[in-house]
């Protein structure tokens, strides 16, 4: 180790320089009137990254005995930058991001957009220098014993650098499409702009499956719901029993999909159209009555039971699955696909996600919101992630292998 690193002087210098970097970032941010850092897009970001990487390799390999370079790639400076990143992230983790706070100073300092601002960018830039130098020193000369270090630190560098450099090439758009309609235009929420896509999406069918409904007691005066103590079964079905102070409710019959007939009596109906109906017996002080509850829909009034100033209501369950059956058409031909949350589909370099629907209409929504994402830098970022995981697994193995702590 060189005299610069490791000792208290090096820590002091590193902390001072790091504070100056962050402060310079805030000054720049203030001068830039709160505007974020303008990022280069393809191919200039790739070019910049290549030149930056080459510069670090040359600096690390060519000047490895130089005191300044040793300090730049040393642990004390690295630690100071880690703490600076942690501090800036802390600001970003406490102050709501992406929402204007209304304070002019906070806006000019970019406090509600910390992660795209100058202080964060500058600190991360120096962090990449520091991390990059440390990796170069472990790679040259190559020793297998350093593999874990190379994978973890190198992977982190690749993931961080390509994630940041590629941010400007990332496209995230939302395609709203109605059942029976086709759409090839999407909007970008952050920029409030509409773009034309190289393909179109036709929505054949949108459907939602729900969890079992819930029977609760509604207090309209205080606008709150009270859950009963469930003493039979775990969800609303025949035999379910719940108790509230003063009375008990037992489900006599349960129809998950039903519609009323001409005389108002619920009859089982086709899955898509029907709504949950429950025949309940309310018992209080030896007396009991029977009533039907239903969750209601845009076409049917909810069936509730009034008990003094309270109402016994049946809430529809939360969505379990929602999916869109779509037909995608583009230069590569037509493709039938099913989109579901957590099950995106890749088409012509875009990843398509089931994002949302008309929540007011719920199960009867005719609208499906599909997100399309294009991220050409993803393979590089994933390469970094897998290197990190490989290095991490080796680190774990070394830690576990110790016979004695």
């Amino acid at each position, binding site marked *: 180790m060189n005299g610069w690193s490791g000792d208290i002087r090096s820590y002091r210098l590193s902390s001072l320089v790091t504070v100056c970097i962050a402060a310079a970032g805030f000054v720049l941010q203030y001068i830039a009137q709160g505007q974020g850092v303008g990022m280069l897009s393809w191919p200039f970001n790739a070019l910049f990254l290549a030149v930056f990487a080459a510069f670090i390799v040359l600096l690390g390999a060519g000047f490895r005995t130089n005191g300044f370079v040793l300090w730049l790639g040393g642990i004390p400076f690295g630690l100071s930058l880690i703490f600076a990143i942690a501090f800036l992230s802390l600001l970003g983790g406490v102050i709501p991001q992406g929402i204007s706070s209304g304070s002019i100073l906070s806006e000019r300092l970019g406090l509600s957009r910390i992660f795209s601002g100058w202080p964060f960018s500058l600190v991360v830039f120096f962090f990449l220098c520091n991390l990059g130098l440390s990796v170069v020193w472990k790679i040259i000369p190559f020793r297998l014993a350093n593999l874990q270090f190379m994978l973890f630190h190198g992977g982190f560098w690749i993931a961080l650098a390509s994630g940041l450099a590629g941010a400007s090439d990332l496209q995230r758009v939302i395609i709203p499409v109605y059942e029976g309609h086709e759409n090839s235009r999407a909007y970008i929420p952050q920029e409030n702009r509409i773009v034309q896509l190289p393909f179109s999406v036709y929505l054949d069918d949108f459907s939602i499956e729900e969890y079992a409904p819930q029977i609760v007691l509604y207090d309209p005066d205080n606008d709150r719901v009270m859950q009963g103590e469930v003493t039979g079964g775990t969800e609303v079905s025949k035999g379910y029993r719940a108790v509230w102070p003063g009375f008990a409710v037992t489900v006599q019959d349960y129809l998950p999909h039903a519609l009323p007939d001409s005389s108002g009596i619920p009859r089982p109906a086709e899955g898509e159209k029907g709504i949950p109906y429950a025949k309940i017996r309310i018992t209080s002080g030896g007396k009991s009555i029977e009533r039907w509850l239903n969750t209601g829909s845009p076409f049917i009034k909810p069936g509730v039971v009034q008990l003094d100033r309270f109402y016994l209501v049946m809430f529809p369950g939360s969505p379990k699955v929602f999916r869109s059956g779509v037909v995608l058409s583009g230069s590569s031909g037509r493709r039938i696909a099913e989109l579901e949350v*957590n099950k995106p589909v890749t088409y012509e370099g875009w990843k398509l996600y089931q994002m949302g629907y008309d929540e007011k209409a719920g199960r009867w929504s005719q609208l499906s919101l599909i997100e399309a994402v294009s991220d050409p830098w993803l393979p590089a970022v994933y390469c970094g992630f897998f290197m990190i995981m490989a290095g991490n697994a080796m680190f774990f193995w070394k830690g576990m292998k110790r016979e004695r702590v």
Partner: protein
Amino acid sequence: MTLTDFPVFAFSAIACWATGSLLQILVRRYPAVRYPSYAVMLAGTAFIVWFIVSYWITLERPPLRTLGETRLWYAALIPAVGFLVEYRWKIGWLKYYCMVLAAFFLGINLAHPDVFDKALMPALQSVWFIPHVVVYLVGYVLLAASSAAAWHNIYSGFRSKTELLGYSLSHYLALLGFVLLTFGLVFGALWAKEAWGHYWTWDPKETWAFISWLAYLGYLHLSANGTGRNKLQWYLALSFLVLLVCWFGVNYMPSAQNSVHSYQPD
């Protein structure tokens, strides 16, 4: 099994841990008590495991969605780490801290009972759900144990009774905990790409997980660069507070309004 049965299991577990610990005091005079005392302590953990398994079956989904549900896992796993450390490295004191911590988590659940709710929102229905949460769970458990070991070392330091073994213990627990935090973070990123379209969006929980990860990254570099042992114990003991914010505190932050990580029932 529903939550109405929870108090019985929680109190049984706490009673077992307490009885087993008290029996340990007698071990020096009556060595025959040794094995029964371990059996009783293990039985305490077995009660919690029993509850988790049957609750899982009733819920028809892994009980890993709400904070209350994850606390059940901590209550089972933290003492398990204490017992494993004793089994492998013959360090007996850690298990007491672990049992106290576990009893504390059960206490929170007793004071604030969860609502029985089978629903698992579509975003959570993923192959990543269990690996992401379990890796974090175990990571937090190890770091909680590391912090307990660090407090113990600080306390021993005040009494001028420092043990080399104690320092190594807090270090290795932190190291293993860090490894699991890293896996949790990367698994989370891979999952987020599949569920929300991007691997990193600075969601408040993500940001805090990143800060906690940086805190332990800082620890490993301080330790590698030869920082004094006592300072490192303070660092480890206090780093856990950052983790606690990430774990429970984030939901109360002004920044958490739109977090994809709030799965608490309303």
